[in-house]
């Protein structure tokens, strides 16, 4: 019973960390612009993150080495440094986007100046991280993020044409560059590198060993699948905007379908769920930035060690949060930052996922827990896809004027 409870907690934590501002924006816009046509891309991205998160968790549990340790070991110092710089820049943009998103939600709930809420959000995150243990942080954002379930209810309430919804799960391609840009965006939003960095370091924070492998598999598969269902629900609820030509590029607009379906209660659940998902992602991405730096440079790291035993890790986390705050306060629209962070993360993806794939399949390192045939096949298939998207991402960003058409 205790084991089941523990697994349930992990699944909820994985669910809470999966949806972030990128998923909220890209999936709702996908529904508004292309109806259900991009549901297949959501499924593809969700399966991809589940495959790689499972590998990362397995490597961490078996070898006690987190992702960036593995990256430096496999790619060497030079390429590892390139990976570190790329992922740090993407992580910093992501933290800024999440912090800005959090401030937007607070503004919608309490109506004061945006810049004040940016500072409030940053202080709030510092307080939460200072007061709660690692598991507590995960559970706070995971449990409260469950308010996002209102989007599943909203999608069902809209009474979609299920035939068309089913058709959306069949991959389709159009010649439109905007469509291709959204394929990249929806896929990349699901596979943001910080998610696997956090997942693998989190496994070590929680003391996973070989006996945790079953828990790891369930967390990755069930947790991310639930996240994927929520992402699909966002696409379906975004369909509300399609007939009237609304492009839900404001974060507040994402909550409108829930208000339309369930009134004020729906709106509050939607905003609350978004706030905790984005808050969780802000913690995950800022921790990831510090994990990567500390692991690459060989510093003591980990929330479980506390600020005294891991002072440089703690200080770097605060610095990342502060820099992110400055970026948002500079006046750049957080949704624009999100779009850039998602697209540029695609470019950094190969540097994150190749070393994971190599080490997870290395029998001399992983022993009997190395990748089997299915994991190897899926891993390389996804890697090939990631490389293609990495090449296409920036030209598509430029060709579509950042998704503006």
């Amino acid at each position, binding site marked *: 019973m205790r084991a089941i409870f523990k697994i349930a907690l992990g699944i909820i934590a994985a669910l809470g960390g999966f949806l972030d501002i990128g998923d909220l924006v890209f999936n709702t816009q996908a529904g508004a612009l292309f109806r259900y046509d991009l549901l297949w891309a959501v499924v593809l991205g969700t399966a991809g993150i589940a495959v790689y998160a499972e590998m990362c968790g397995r490597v961490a549990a078996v070898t006690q080495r987190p992702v960036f340790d593995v990256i430096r070991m496999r790619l060497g110092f030079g390429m590892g440094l390139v990976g570190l710089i790329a992922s740090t820049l993407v992580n910093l943009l992501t933290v800024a986007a999440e912090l800005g998103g959090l401030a937007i939600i607070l*503004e*919608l*709930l*309490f*109506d004061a100046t945006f810049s004040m809420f940016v500072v409030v959000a940053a202080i709030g995150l510092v307080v939460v991280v200072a007061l709660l243990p690692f598991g507590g942080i995960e559970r706070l954002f995971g449990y409260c993020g469950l308010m996002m379930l209102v989007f599943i209810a909203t999608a069902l309430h809209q009474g979609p044409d299920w035939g068309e919804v089913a058709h959306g799960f069949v991959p389709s391609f159009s010649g439109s560059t905007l469509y291709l840009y959204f394929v990249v965006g929806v896929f990349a939003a699901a596979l943001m590198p910080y998610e696997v960095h956090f997942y693998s370091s989190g496994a070590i924070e929680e003391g996973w060993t070989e006996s945790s492998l079953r828990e790891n598999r369930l967390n990755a598969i069930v947790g991310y699948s639930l996240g994927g269902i929520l992402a699909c629900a966002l696409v379906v609820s975004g369909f509300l*905007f399609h007939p*009237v*030509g*609304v*492009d839900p590029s*404001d974060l*507040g*607009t994402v*909550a*409108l379908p829930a*208000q*339309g379906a369930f*009134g*004020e209660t729906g*709106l*509050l659940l939607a*905003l609350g769920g978004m706030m905790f998902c984005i808050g969780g992602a802000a913690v995950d991405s800022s921790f990831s930035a510090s994990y990567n730096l500390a692991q690459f440079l060989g510093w003591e790291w980990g929330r479980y060690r506390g600020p005294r035993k891991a002072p440089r890790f703690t200080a770097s986390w605060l610095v990342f949060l502060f820099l992110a705050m400055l970026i948002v306060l500079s006046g750049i629209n957080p949704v624009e930052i999100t779009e850039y962070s998602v697209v540029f993360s695609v470019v950094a993806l190969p540097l994150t996922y190749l070393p994971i794939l190599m080490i997870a399949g290395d029998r001399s390192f992983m022993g009997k827990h190395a990748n089997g045939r299915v994991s190897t096949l899926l891993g390389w298939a996804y890697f090939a896809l990631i490389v293609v998207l990495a090449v296409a991402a920036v030209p598509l960003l430029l060709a579509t004027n950042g998704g503006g058409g």
Partner: protein
Amino acid sequence: MRVERRWRWVPAAASIAALSICATGCGDLSRAELSRGVESLSALAAQGGLIANGVARDATKSTYSRVMAKTLGDEAEHEAEKLADATPSPEVTRERDAAVQIAGEIAQLFSELRTFPGDERHGVLVQRHMREAKERADAVVTRLTGEAP
């Protein structure tokens, strides 16, 4: 001396580049550009209608309506300014003027929503006027493109 001669082409090239930029970017507001602007006005009005619907049904939170109305109202005002500042090609002057008027009306409706975010009666009125503004914007798009949006 030879160096000076070598760089003599720079001012000429810069002038050509500046003229080219003006020819492509600072010229008349084209039919397609105007159409895109009016389509975004139609989308703003649709979004305003959805927000006003929440106010009309007393099914929203007033802070949410107020902040959304401010954000979208600013966008409508910006669109109105952009359209008003642009020099339209002669064949779309009438449509440009209509678009500026619609943008101004939408901005005004958002301002009303911002002032009365919890008033159901205002919500009903704003919703109706947003629908009318959207219909007029759609009609302008139809005139510009020859097809319904």
